């Protein structure tokens, strides 16, 4: 039988390391996939805090005891919760959304608690902002001078982005397509609509492969940065925030701090990798897969955006006879940062011509490839919409023509196209609302509009007051900053799953609360 064919095929999980997985997944006392996922998420935070503690011990020794306490605490809470919960063989697709929503909320709460426990920020809302920006892999930071922070805190801060990026990657590649949402399964690596088989062997295998690939890519990034000339600590943290397309930096000047050509090229390479479709890479590495990498239309488009965009920005910013290697490198760096929605910068684009800035903003809005940790509208959707517009042109002249929508040579079904357009509309509506909100709380016109686009694309810096190196988000009033948080959250989790997840979680909580009240009342009546 073809393993990949049926939408609801569940083979027993019995082979190799899966036996262990199967035992863990089925062991718990309560049947709650949501609890299990939340437990795992908190456990990963615990591992991260432990890592921070160890790193602090071997470096500057600050904040070590706090992180030791937190590491033990989060590990216990997370492992305990995951251990107590059991994942049933089948559950509704919407349960997955509740799980994703709850997991992200949980890690953000964990991170806020951590920052508050450490006393990193003077105001609690700064902790909230830094946590949300971290786990949504957005590069907006309220830290004015990262150099002054302790090493362990910097590691934690970069780690939130790394965990957020991994979560987003797994969410986009494994969860979304398996329930046919958002239309991302059009990618070369995507699966077919497969009902609610989240626990199918195939999905689990893919999750594992992606996680391993993500880890090895990060290792590659660390090696790249070490060769480029960074110190080991910087190499680790910068690699974590680059491969996750997060963009937090240990220095206020981001990559500009190093003043090194090789480091900048290494950063460019890392960001291009971070925004690339990892599922595609998995497929290419699989035995027998004859490298569909180069045949991928999306990958070609991605490289075209980066190099074409870089060339355009260079020409827009410098007059043709004054183009220097440095100008080309800076342009490529920033365009790669925009196309992968990372947010690292070298000097920034404040002194660019306006045309170059607008182009950069457009690239940010389109965003990274599908199947990556990057954000934005995502390239494959944009390409599909171009195909849709081509068909619209044909239909204008041949109203009865039958003309499929294509991405490269692949035909995209009308149902998927409809989802993508729906997503585009949601994206625009959310961004527009966000822009009005930011402006209403005191942002300038250009700042507000570009900040909304940048936040929903999980990029970070923007135009106006938010060009890198101008003091950044701290110039906005606190309510305006807060208005960006929902944009980051919605953008990271592709809008509709968050809304559905939040609504279901709310109704579930209300239902349980009502049950509880009834039970209490019954007992009181019995007494």
């Amino acid at each position, binding site marked *: 039988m073809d393993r990949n064919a049926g939408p609801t095929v569940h083979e027993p999980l019995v082979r190799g390391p899966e036996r262990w997985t199967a035992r863990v997944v089925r062991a718990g006392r309560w049947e709650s996939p949501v609890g299990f996922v939340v437990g795992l998420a908190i456990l990963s935070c615990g591992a991260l805090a432990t890592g921070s503690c160890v790193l602090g011990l071997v470096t500057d020794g600050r904040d070590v005891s706090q992180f030791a306490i937190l590491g033990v605490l989060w590990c216990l809470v997370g492992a305990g919760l995951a251990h107590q919960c059991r994942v049933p063989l089948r559950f509704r697709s919407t349960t997955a959304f509740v799980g994703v929503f709850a997991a992200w909320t949980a890690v953000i709460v964990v991170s806020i608690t951590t920052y508050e426990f450490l006393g990193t920020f003077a105001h609690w809302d700064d902790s909230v902002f830094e946590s949300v920006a971290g786990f949504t892999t957005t590069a907006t930071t309220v830290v004015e001078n990262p150099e002054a922070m302790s090493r362990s805190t910097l590691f934690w801060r970069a780690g939130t982005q790394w965990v957020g990026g991994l979560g987003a990657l797994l969410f986009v590649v494994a969860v979304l397509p398996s329930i046919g*949402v958002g239309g991302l399964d*059009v990618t070369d690596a995507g699966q077919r609509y497969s009902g609610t088989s989240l626990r199918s062997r195939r999905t689990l295998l893919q999750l594992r492969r992606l996680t391993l690939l993500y880890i090895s890519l990060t290792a590659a990034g660390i090696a790249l940065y070490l060769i480029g000339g960074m110190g080991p600590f910087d190499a680790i943290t910068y690699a974590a925030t680059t491969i996750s397309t997060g963009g937090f930096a240990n220095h206020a000047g981001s990559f500009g701090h190093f003043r090194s050509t090789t480091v900048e090229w290494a950063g460019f390479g890392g960001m291009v990798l971070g925004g690339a479709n990892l599922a595609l890479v998995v497929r290419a590495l699989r035995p027998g897969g004859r490298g569909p990498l180069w045949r991928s239309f999306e990958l070609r488009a991605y490289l075209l955006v980066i190099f074409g965009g870089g060339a355009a920005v260079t020409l827009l910013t410098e007059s043709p006879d004054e183009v220097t290697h440095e100008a080309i490198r800076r342009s490529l760096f920033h365009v790669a940062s925009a196309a992968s929605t990372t947010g690292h910068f070298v000097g920034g684009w404040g002194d660019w011509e306006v045309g170059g*800035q607008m182009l950069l903003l457009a690239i940010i809005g389109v965003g990274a490839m599908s199947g990556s940790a990057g954000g934005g509208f995502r390239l494959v959707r944009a390409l599909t*919409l171009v195909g849709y517009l081509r068909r619209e042109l*044909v239909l204008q*002249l041949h109203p009865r023509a039958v003309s499929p929508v294509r991405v490269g040579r692949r035909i995209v079904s009308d149902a998927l196209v409809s989802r993508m357009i729906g997503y585009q509309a*949601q994206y625009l509506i959310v961004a527009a609302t966000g822009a009005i909100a930011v402006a209403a709380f005191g942002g300038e016109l250009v700042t507000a509009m570009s900040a909304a686009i940048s936040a929903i694309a999980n990029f970070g810096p923007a135009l106006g007051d938010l060009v890198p190196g101008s003091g950044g988000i701290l110039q906005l009033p606190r309510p305006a900053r807060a208005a960006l948080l929902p944009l980051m959250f919605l953008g990271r989790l592709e809008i509709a799953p968050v809304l559905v997840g939040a609504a279901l979680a709310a109704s579930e909580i209300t239902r349980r609360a009502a049950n509880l009240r009834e039970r209490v009342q019954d007992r009181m009546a019995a007494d």
Partner: protein
Amino acid sequence: MSVLAPFAVRRQVASASLHIAGLSVLAVAGASASGLVVELVYRDDQWRALAASTVGLGILGILAWRTTSLPPNAGGPRGAVRAVGVAWISISLAAAVPFVVADVLPWDLALFESVSGLTGTGSTVLAPIEGNTHGILFYRQMTQWVGGMGVVVLAVAVLPFLGVGGLQLFRAESPGPTADQLVPRVSDTARRLWGVYCALTALATLVLLATGLSLYDAVSHAATGVGTGGFSPYNDSISHFDSATVEVGIMVAMALGAVKFPLFYAAFRGRDLGAFWRSSEFRFLVWVVVASTAFVTVLNWRDGMTPSAALRDSSFNVVSLISSCGFGTADFTRWVPATQIVLLFLMVTGSMAGSTSGALKLFRVQVVAKHAWREVRRVRHPSGVFPLRLGREPVPEDIVRSVLGYVMFYFLIAVAGFVVLATLGADVATSVGSVITAMGGVGPGLGDAGPAANFLVFDFAQRSVLIVLMLVGRLEIFPLLLFLLPVGPSLVRRLDRVSVRGRLRGPAGSTGGAARARR
């Protein structure tokens, strides 16, 4: 047609484009003639220029019209689309003639002014406006009136019989995703629409007379108010009058132009004012106007205006921008940024489909918003069936499809416009505001191109981009796109070839990936 007997020419070329273009140029000649009449009444000194342009354009129009004949069905959909494109390019050139002949503007500025007029945009490069004679200014107002309802619709109204081609011509020009047939015959529909338009303009003139304007002012502003153009013969636009009563009168005129004309017809025919409220789009319009007025008023009030002044300026500008008219009473580029963003979105949405207003039209906004929501619901119920309804009426899926495609085209062209205009040297706010205002046919933009500014702030290249955008927005993209792109047919052949090649190559269907993966 016996009146036209003297103009009959024996040998005729079958060309829908030239035929329609000739008729359209005659409409511009008519506008020029009305300017001539005003000029003569006021005994100003530009009457020779106006008379010369009237006669010249008239001869040109009659020549193009009478030496050609309509091919059967007006050349099919492609021919209709091309005819509308040709017609609009020729009237843009024709309407610039009086300005050039009267030596008011050099040819490139005259072209900007004429396109801005005909497309109902209302961005002006006349500086100062008031230095010109009454006739020239009145002609300028009338270009907006003629362009408001559409010259091709006018041509369809006077042409005897067009068959299916007439509907396609009508569709290609009339604003909105669907062209509602009031009566079975297209030319009768076009005639009734023009009838409604004239009646509304007359009504607006009466209202404005009642607010105390002179006949000249009342007609001028009624024409550009109902036509939602936004030209005014005064430098300060509506603030020239400095009167709340006049502003209310102008708001009435703009509101008349913002409502779907078939609704007026239905209400008049059925003696039933409920026809308005039964339209979901109308209710949405009212809702949007009330909500954004409230929001803008509150923000302006908190910014230091007195409540009454805030309400007066906010409501006027909201109505002026959502109807894509663009009359000005206040410089909203000085208001707080949040109000400007709201106003910018009003410039994008526009008013009801089937009115003279420009931009996306609320019908499309509703469809897009409802589609976005139904895709959220589909996440909750992946196998659900969600018909898209406006009010109680389900919207057919092919209309939804074309609306979504149109909105995306609009969005894409706007983004391209932002980048191009910024590249040519405008700052961010200015390029965003002026592209949106040009595509929506509104008039004032943001930044340097606000209500108090003149579009002379843009250089030649930027103005040329804006001219194209105004035409693209007014003709709802496709006629001009198919006309401008390396001529429709060859493009389509290329498009078709691509799809044929693709079909021959790969296995069809979205399962192709899995098939290839297994291979």
